[in-house]
């Protein structure tokens, strides 16, 4: 099983670069659209009349199937990681179950030179950017603090401190502007994160400097046990408007709508129009993490309600009713997913533990007297045991 590497991204849905797809002249019109962007209804019908359709006019049957396959594989990776954690192979896992469309749809809108600042739940985005899923598990297994090279894949190591990453994306985007480049930075964060001062400061800096950054908020209705209403009595897109940042509220379980909205936001960024805030309305179908017990704070009824809006079921229905997919396709996707999860499990079990000496590496980029001293002392200490033995 191969994974698309950064270079290969020049093929497929994700390279449809916004400048080509999105004529600058039309941007204000689309940005001005008010209301929830939805292109595929909950029961898998194409909605009519939404101007965002034009933003995904190029998405043909093959690409629709690719999007479905991505979501199916990502869901399987998530399920396998949950299983590995239950079996004690991972210290923790934050499942994305239910957020596949929000993640795949937005990731597939990225151009090859965009850069992403994710939170800890964006496994689907990481996958779409060509990271070997095994590497995703590394920090959750405790075998390391990160898993891949941010520059190779165009995506930073996930932020665990809630709300810390939008400022990094804003600064990166400022750098893009100073370089005179026309790529963008895109950052993911949750509904709970919108309460953190750092996120507000990121909105402020981005709006003040008019930099090419996309703030992608996955409003999955919950911040651990706290419902989104505790964070805000207004919709999250409205937050951005307070800074003059246009907001797009999109059905986060509709992969096409998310793709369209993200393409628009990236196009705005490249057109020099500054930041956009996207609120992808979705649902965290699983626990916050493997340590969480949602039955303590939310109702089965709400879970039910959202299960009916499942992002995969929706696209699958469309593909089948429109005759774009058949049982053979489903079997193929199933076997692709199985292959990925098998490789994931094998890779996880084969992952080496860190060596004691690694502990002292990369604290500083340049030599550091105290650290060298502690490294030597600890090595000598460990050596005494070997002698002892």
């Amino acid at each position, binding site marked *: 099983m191969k994974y698309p590497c950064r270079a290969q991204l020049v093929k497929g849905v994700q390279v449809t670069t916004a400048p080509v797809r999105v004529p600058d002249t039309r941007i204000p019109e689309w940005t001005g659209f008010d209301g929830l962007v939805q292109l595929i209804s909950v029961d898998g019908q194409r909605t009519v009349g939404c101007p965002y359709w034009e933003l995904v006019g190029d998405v043909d049957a093959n690409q629709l199937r690719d999007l479905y396959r991505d979501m199916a594989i990502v869901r399987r990776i998530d399920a396998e990681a949950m299983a590995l954690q239950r079996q004690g192979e991972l*210290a*923790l896992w934050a499942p994305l179950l239910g957020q596949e469309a929000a993640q795949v749809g937005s990731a597939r809108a990225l151009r090859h030179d965009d850069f992403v600042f994710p939170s*800890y739940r964006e496994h689907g985005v990481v996958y779409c950017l060509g990271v070997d899923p095994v590497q995703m598990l590394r*920090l*959750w*297994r*405790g*075998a*390391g*603090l990160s898993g891949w090279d941010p520059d190779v894949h165009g995506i930073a190591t996930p932020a*665990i*401190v*809630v*709300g810390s990453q939008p400022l990094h994306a804003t600064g990166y985007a400022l750098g893009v502007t100073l370089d005179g480049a026309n790529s963008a930075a895109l950052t993911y964060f949750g509904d*709970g*994160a919108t*309460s*953190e*001062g*750092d996120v507000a400061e990121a909105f402020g800096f981005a709006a003040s400097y008019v930099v090419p950054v996309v703030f992608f908020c996955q409003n999955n209705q919950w*911040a*651990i*046990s*706290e419902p989104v209403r*505790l*964070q805000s009595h207004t919709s999250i897109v409205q937050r951005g408007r307070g800074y003059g940042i246009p907001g797009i509220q999109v059905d986060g379980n509709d992969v096409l709508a998310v793709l369209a909205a993200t393409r628009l936001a990236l196009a705005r960024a490249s057109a020099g129009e500054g930041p956009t805030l996207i609120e992808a309305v979705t649902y965290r179908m699983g626990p916050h993490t493997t*340590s969480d017990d949602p039955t*303590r*704070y939310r109702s089965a009824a709400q879970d039910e309600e959202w299960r009916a809006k499942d992002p995969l079921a929706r696209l699958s229905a469309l593909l089948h009713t429109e005759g774009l997919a058949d049982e053979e396709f489903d079997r193929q996707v199933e076997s692709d997913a199985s292959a990925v999860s098998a490789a994931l499990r094998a890779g996880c079990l084969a992952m080496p*533990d*860190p060596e*004691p000496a*690694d*502990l*002292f590496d990369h*604290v500083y980029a340049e030599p*550091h007297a*105290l*650290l060298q001293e*502690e490294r030597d002392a*600890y090595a000598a*200490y460990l050596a*005494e045991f070997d002698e002892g033995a």
Partner: protein
Amino acid sequence: MSTMSLGKALNSGLRRAMEHDPKVVLMGEDIGKLGGVFRVTEGLQRDFGDRRVIDTPLAESGVIGTAVGLAMRGYRPVCEIQFDGFVYPAFDQIVSQVAKLHYRNEGRVTVPLTIRIPFGGGVGAVEHHSESPEAYFAHTAGLRVVTPSNAADGYRMIQQAIASDDPVVFFEPKRRYWEKGEVDDDGALSDVPLERAVVLREGDQVTIAAYGPMVATALHAAHIAEGEGTSVEVIDLRSLSPIDFATLEASVHKTGRLVVAHEASVFGGLGAEIAARISERCFFHLEAPVRRVGGFATPYPASRAEDHFLPDADRILHEVDRCLQP
């Protein structure tokens, strides 16, 4: 007397404090229905209502800053910071406001705030969930910093911290939450003052000073040492600001040797303050230099390497041995 875990003892202590004083309110992320990620506030919102056990928006500076306002209105807020690594967004409110308001107002304003922080490593967690930031707060004048090492102290000290008219940063050794102990929950409050250190085990050759999660490790080390014929005294500091130097000095006068252990990085950690002051005050009593054992000058590592970062009984005993053959 009843037997309970440290986590449950803290829960009972909080309950007792809330029953005792209607002005005590709890604030924090996920402390209501969920009962906190460690369940320390379990059942309290159910029993005291959501006006006394308040789930806050996800913003630590907001939690502490609003608690300051509540305190100025006459309340006694107890704030929970979900993990050690997430107290930093509130650092400005803690250092520039909580710690200084009483001084700034020349005593006309009091800020009887308690800030609960589960701290330390050893639980196999991801980054930012295993830190030991106590030295930052101990170096900040205006704050009191304490940490219980066992259930009995957890039950008593949380009530003493809440009753104090000073702001108290209350560190809870998260990897000990599940360790059980005898708690005097029917008797009166202990008369051991909050700022007093206690000798948990007597010995006359070497003193080990520890606090929070390292106390159990120190006791374990002392037990092993005894088997090897070395008599070790173990002191649980309990209070990190102020530090009970009188108790430490008395012990060092007896043993002439001191090892200080904590999880935080040794460089600039509280062990430095203890070693500096004891080396000064017990200059003519020390048979060997004060030794420090603790974390390295690195960030907290990946959990599969944490056993190397965290001092264990062996590393403590290594320093004990060095004290005995300087």
